[in-house]
């Protein structure tokens, strides 16, 4: 399909920037980043983080924007068509299936997780979250005592809300299910309204609101003073996050943090996750650009908005708040328990100690909901674009078909134990670096580095330093290759050598038929998408 003149466009540049920022800014900015930084050397973690940002994230981001605009001008909003336009091989479009598989799988579980934030916001607003015992908290409590006497009711509440394990199933509350359905309907409705009337309007409302709420909460956190003990306050949380720890303990050994491969992998993984690189979503949004619209400055603006939300706002909320009430030792333990423990267990407890805390808690979860919702529509858009551009559906038909698939497949995440973890492992952890590596090789080596460089500069508001050309051509693929090889070594090679490959819980969940069902679902989905691509291209005279 070429020269689709009726293709929708972004109405305003600021709307595009906010929508792209909304795609990137998600739960990871406020929950994942502080935990990862704290675990991996604090300020020292920022060195690999920013090296990965410059050598990997910025080149990939510009390449994805350029590929998206290039594909959009040829009537393709998704990677099968884009890859086929750039690589004259019959397999190109099938390789591109990865770029619709990843966002479609992510949207299935991310919508469910995102809906928790709305549910929690409502619970908090109505003051229905567990109550903290104000007299139970006193200076000098150990992390274990804080976990048992302060945080346990919140942790139990979270288990009840997200599902109690019962064999291979999860028992989920009706309210959880109802809120999920509401978020799903809202997302489908926004998608059905289209790019400028749905996604752009959402971004123009949600993104400024998100920044305002985040700033209000940051101010509240830093005006806490020393609520429990004169020995610790929010600044100690900042210190915990920013003081460089050059030597950290890993597996019982002291290691120099910058020479430990795990630190580099965590930093690169965080950069990928936070900027939604290798998800196929940036290309899809960029496909709605005009031919000569700038991608360089606009891409940089969305990246900077994401980093602002992550490093400045995200780093100043959850950890400093936890440190102010529970002290550094407990904040460290909380951070090591993962993003959900930090966001859904510790923060509601912190706000529970404050006057009008339920209102602050509602704001916190609503902030997370806005971040999640803008990412949900971004992840769903590639499938809509695929159905519209390649299959020939109207937007309304595409939204309904996707909505039905979305609703049905989400039940794997809601009711099967380990369902969303399996999806996250393959689509959210392994998929993005793989797709990014394919994209970089395709654009810089197969399509041609000079051609893509010229394409990138068409309508550009500022020239890209030549340094990034060589980086994208030589350094970025090597960086991505190392990430994938390390992933392969850790997750596939080691279990095979140990003879436990088929029994190993690759996805970090206990094996059972629920895990295998989810894996089978992913295989069928990928196969189904390949068949759809085959059918879409059948009868087209020649690859473009």
């Amino acid at each position, binding site marked *: 399909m070429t020269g689709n003149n009726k293709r929708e466009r972004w109405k305003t540049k600021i709307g595009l920037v906010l929508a792209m920022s909304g795609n990137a800014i998600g739960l990871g900015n406020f929950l994942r980043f502080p935990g990862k930084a704290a675990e991996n050397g604090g300020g020292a973690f920022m060195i690999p983080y920013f090296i990965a940002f410059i050598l990997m994230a910025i080149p990939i981001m510009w390449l994805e924007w350029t590929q998206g605009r290039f594909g959009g001008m040829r009537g393709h909003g998704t990677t099968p068509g884009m890859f086929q336009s750039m690589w004259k091989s019959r397999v190109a479009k099938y390789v591109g299936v990865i770029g619709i598989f990843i966002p479609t799988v992510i949207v299935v579980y991310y919508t469910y997780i995102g809906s928790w934030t709305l549910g929690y916001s409502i619970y908090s607003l109505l003051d229905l979250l567990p109550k903290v015992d104000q007299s139970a908290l006193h200076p000098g409590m150990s992390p274990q005592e804080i976990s048992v006497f302060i945080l346990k009711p919140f942790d139990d509440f979270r288990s009840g809300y997200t599902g109690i394990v019962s064999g291979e199933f999860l028992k989920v509350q009706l309210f959880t299910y109802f809120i999920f359905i509401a978020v799903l309907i809202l997302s489908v409705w926004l998608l059905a309204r289209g790019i400028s009337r749905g996604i752009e309007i959402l971004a123009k409302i949600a993104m400024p609101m998100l920044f305002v709420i985040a700033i209000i909460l940051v101010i509240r956190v830093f005006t806490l003073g020393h609520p429990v003990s004169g020995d610790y306050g929010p600044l100690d949380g900042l210190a915990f996050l*920013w003081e460089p720890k050059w030597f950290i303990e890993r597996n019982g050994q002291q290691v120099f943090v910058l020479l430990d491969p795990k630190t580099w992998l965590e930093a690169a993984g965080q950069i990928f996750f936070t900027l939604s690189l290798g998800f196929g979503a940036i290309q899809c949004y960029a496909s709605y650009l005009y031919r000569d619209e700038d991608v360089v400055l606009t891409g940089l603006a969305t990246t900077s908005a994401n980093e602002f939300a992550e490093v400045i706002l995200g780093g100043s909320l959850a950890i400093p708040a936890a440190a102010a009430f529970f002290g550094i030792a407990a904040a460290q333990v909380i951070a090591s328990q993962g993003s959900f423990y930090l966001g859904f267990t510790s923060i509601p407890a912190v706000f529970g100690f404050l006057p009008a805390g339920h209102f602050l808690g509602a704001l916190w979860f609503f902030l997370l909901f806005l971040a999640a919702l803008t990412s949900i529509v971004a992840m769903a858009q590639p499938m809509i674009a695929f159905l519209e551009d390649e299959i020939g559906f109207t937007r309304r038909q595409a939204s309904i078909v996707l909505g039905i698939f979305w609703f049905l497949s989400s039940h794997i995440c809601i009711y099967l134990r380990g369902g969303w973890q399996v999806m996250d492992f393959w689509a959210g952890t392994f998929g993005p670096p793989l797709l990014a590596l394919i994209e970089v090789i395709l654009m810089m080596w197969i399509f041609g580095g000079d051609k893509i460089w010229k394409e990138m500069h068409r309508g550009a508001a500022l020239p890209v330093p030549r340094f990034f050309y060589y980086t994208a051509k030589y350094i970025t693929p090597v960086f991505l290759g190392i990430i994938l090889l390390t992933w392969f070594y850790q997750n596939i090679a080691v279990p095979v050598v140990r003879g436990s490959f088929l029994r190993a819980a690759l996805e970090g969940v206990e094996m059972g038929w629920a895990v295998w069902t989810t894996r089978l679902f992913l295989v069928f989905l990928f196969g189904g998408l390949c068949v759809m691509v085959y059918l879409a291209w059948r009868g087209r005279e020649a690859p473009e």
Partner: protein
Amino acid sequence: MNWQGWIFMFIVWGLVGCLFFYAFYHILSGERIRNKKIQNKRKKGSKG
């Protein structure tokens, strides 16, 4: 927080903040110029 922490924090915040304000300043000023051009065209059109 020790001095290394403050230095790390301010360097990172400074870099991210500058990038953010630089990019958004140019985007918003470009948008303003574009809107003015559209308004001028409309004015000319209504006069003509």
